């Protein structure tokens, strides 16, 4: 190939670069062309954390479905405005949120979906025990696991089980007050009558997303929700970031801390007078004499 031919090729590739580069950069920034060469700045919504097989709806229109390979969905090229995101999956509670989309920014939709019917493992009060290999007599004895878990529900209990590890979640009978909030790292949780609050005690730069708006103007203290009556107990739902666990008179439910007014309540247990305890990352619910471990 002659030098001139090569120079022509280089020139052609240079021209292609000059044409493609600004287009790709504008697209990457979220700017799209409308009506010819007019540029419209757009934003997006990042849907994360939905179970596999969840269908994502934007303003009631199906957008995509999560799969093993695409667990998270990025909805691009959205004109600034308010959008309704709904995530549905058979067997799960439907998740929804109203999200504001701004120019060149991405709003997060952190999905929190519990199964409609939460799996439980009942802890029996008694177990059967045979007296020995030669005996045919079977006796009914108190289940040690039941005794141990039951002791969690006594307010005086501090040392109950042999802990296999330390839990970051306070399992003791701390109800959480403004002066002594339940701490998870730098996040404090407490209730005042029928209101549940969270407060961030760390630096503004490290505050969780749900404490901040899209421009990262973060609140120190935030009202999680206002209930119709005072909850019996509150805590963080183990294994989930930014989800509060609440027990009321006849139910235990989870509520996601949101940076807007949407408050989604997802039921975990319905009964007569349930209460819960957390130990080492496990959630136990006691209703009367029945104790169950909640499998999340």
């Amino acid at each position: 190939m002659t030098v001139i031919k090569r120079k022509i090729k280089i020139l052609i590739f240079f021209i292609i670069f000059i044409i493609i580069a600004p287009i790709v950069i504008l697209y990457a920034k979220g700017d799209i062309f409308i009506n010819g060469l007019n540029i419209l700045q757009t934003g997006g919504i990042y849907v994360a954390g939905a179970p596999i097989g969840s269908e994502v709806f934007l303003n009631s229109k199906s957008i995509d479905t999560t799969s093993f390979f695409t667990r998270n969905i990025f909805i691009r090229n959205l004109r600034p405005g308010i959008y309704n995101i709904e995530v549905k999956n058979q067997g799960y509670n439907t998740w929804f949120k109203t999200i504001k989309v701004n120019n060149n920014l991405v709003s997060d939709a952190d999905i929190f979906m519990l199964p409609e019917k939460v799996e439980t493992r009942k802890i029996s009060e008694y177990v059967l025990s045979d007296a020995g290999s030669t005996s045919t007599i079977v006796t009914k004895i108190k289940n040690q696991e039941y005794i141990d878990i039951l002791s969690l529900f006594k307010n005086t209990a501090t040392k109950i089980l042999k802990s296999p590890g330390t839990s970051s979640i306070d399992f003791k009978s701390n109800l959480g007050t403004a002066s002594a909030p339940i701490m998870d790292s730098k996040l404090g949780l407490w209730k005042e009558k029928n209101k549940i609050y969270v407060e961030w005690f760390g630096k503004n730069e490290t505050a969780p997303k749900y404490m901040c708006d899209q421009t990262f103007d973060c609140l120190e203290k935030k009202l999680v929700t206002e209930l119709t009556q005072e909850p019996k107990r509150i805590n963080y739902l183990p294994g989930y970031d930014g989800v509060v666990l609440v027990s009321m008179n006849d139910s235990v439910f989870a509520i996601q801390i949101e940076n807007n007014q949407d408050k989604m309540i997802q039921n975990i247990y319905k009964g007569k007078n349930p209460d819960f305890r957390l130990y080492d990352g496990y959630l136990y619910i006691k209703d009367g004499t029945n104790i169950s471990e909640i499998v999340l």
Partner: protein
Amino acid sequence: MDYKQTPYYRVGRASDLSGSDKIIYRILEIIPGFLAWLTIVGIFVLSFFTPFFCAIFIILFDIYWILKTVYLSIFLRQNWRKTRHNMSVNWKERISHLKYDGIYQMILLPFYNESYEIVKKSLDSIINCEYNKNKFIIVIAGEARNKKHYNEIVKNVEKDFSGKFGHIYYSLHPFGVEGEMPGKGSNIAYATEQVRINLLDKEGIKYENVLVSAFDIDTVVYPQYFECLIWNFLTTEEPLKSSFQPVPVFNNNIWDSPALSRVVAFSATFWQMIQQERPDRLATFSSHSVCFKTLYNMGYWQKNMVSEDSRIFWNSFLANNGDYKVVPLCYPISMDANLAHNFWQTTKNVYKQQRRWAWGVENGPYVLFGFLKNKEIPKAKKSKFTFILLEGFWSLSTNPIIIFFLGWLPVILGGRDFNSTVLSHNLPFITKTLMTIAMLGLFLCIFISMSFMPKAPVNCSKWKKISVIIQWIMIPFTVIIFGALPGLDAQTRLMLGKYMGFWVTPKHRKKTS
């Protein structure tokens, strides 16, 4: 200006100079490594402090990379067609109307501890060539530090090849000569001078009538290599200001080599093929040929450095005030791909060989220093080669790392402000998409590599046959581990003044090869 007469002509490293020259040369040694590290560290710093601009840079770089890939693949395809064509040409017929009877072919076969089996295969390939055997001067060049092995090779060569070539000359390069670095350069320079004194001068053979081919010991030539070489030598303008470069194809033992070694070996071949299509950028590499007269005038290969194969070109380029070129032969020669007794050793050898090739960066300061000292070379030529050299070193050591590794850095280090932007979310998507498009070029690699594969041995498994196709998915891995990292390693060593010695690639072949 006769650059050959200056003390700079044979400089191996900064410490060979003194005063301000030493400082300047040392700075030039630092530059390639400094540029590479500046880029890598710069991307980390930019990702942290200005992730937006870093992301824009990465997208622009991705576009540049993909266009460069397409651009270079055009040359690859073109050279492949040319090489295939040249392999089908009857070069004997083509040179029949040229006057070449008086031209001798001096073949340098340097070795250190390689087995006789390797030497024999090279000599057998020369025997099988169609060129008049009486015009061959075979130079078996061993090392005195392994004299016993040298004696064995000599004995075997005598037994099998005595009387089959015009001349067979045996040269034993002495050990521990002051100012020399043990290696191929010092060995073949010594051998060539010995041949001149003891053979050419005694027999009255004119220097301009001898074409010297400096081969590696594993070089296997195709039947009409020497006819092709002669044709190019006799038809090129200014043959005495030219070196001749075949396409090195590392396929002697390709069926025995692991996939990793094959991919790296073919990548090196592809790069040489691309360079053959850009002869104004081409420097000699590995096995190459040149007229003895030119070689004699240049003082043979430099003895005090590692990459003598490229340095002989730069020596000639500077000595001829920039008026020197490499003629691409577009004709292959076969060499060994890396193969050791086990996979891990092969992997280590591949890395070490790549690092030795990347040590060609030592030519950078030599050439740039020469440009400062030799005022006769046109400024435009100096600028062009300065750019080509620095861009080449920089690309080798940084581009694959930027593309496959650092491209995600703004997302990781950019902080939550940046991570809430559309740009942050689009960056991995765009990078991934562009890289996927670039990977389409692998089909070309598969196609061309298959065309250079020798016939599979009878006992070759089906899996092995399939693996020569699917091996190419390793490219993102090999281009970093056996491309960028050895490049960065070599440049960093030069930057820190930790000079490398000559590492002899162990040659190993299975019995089936």
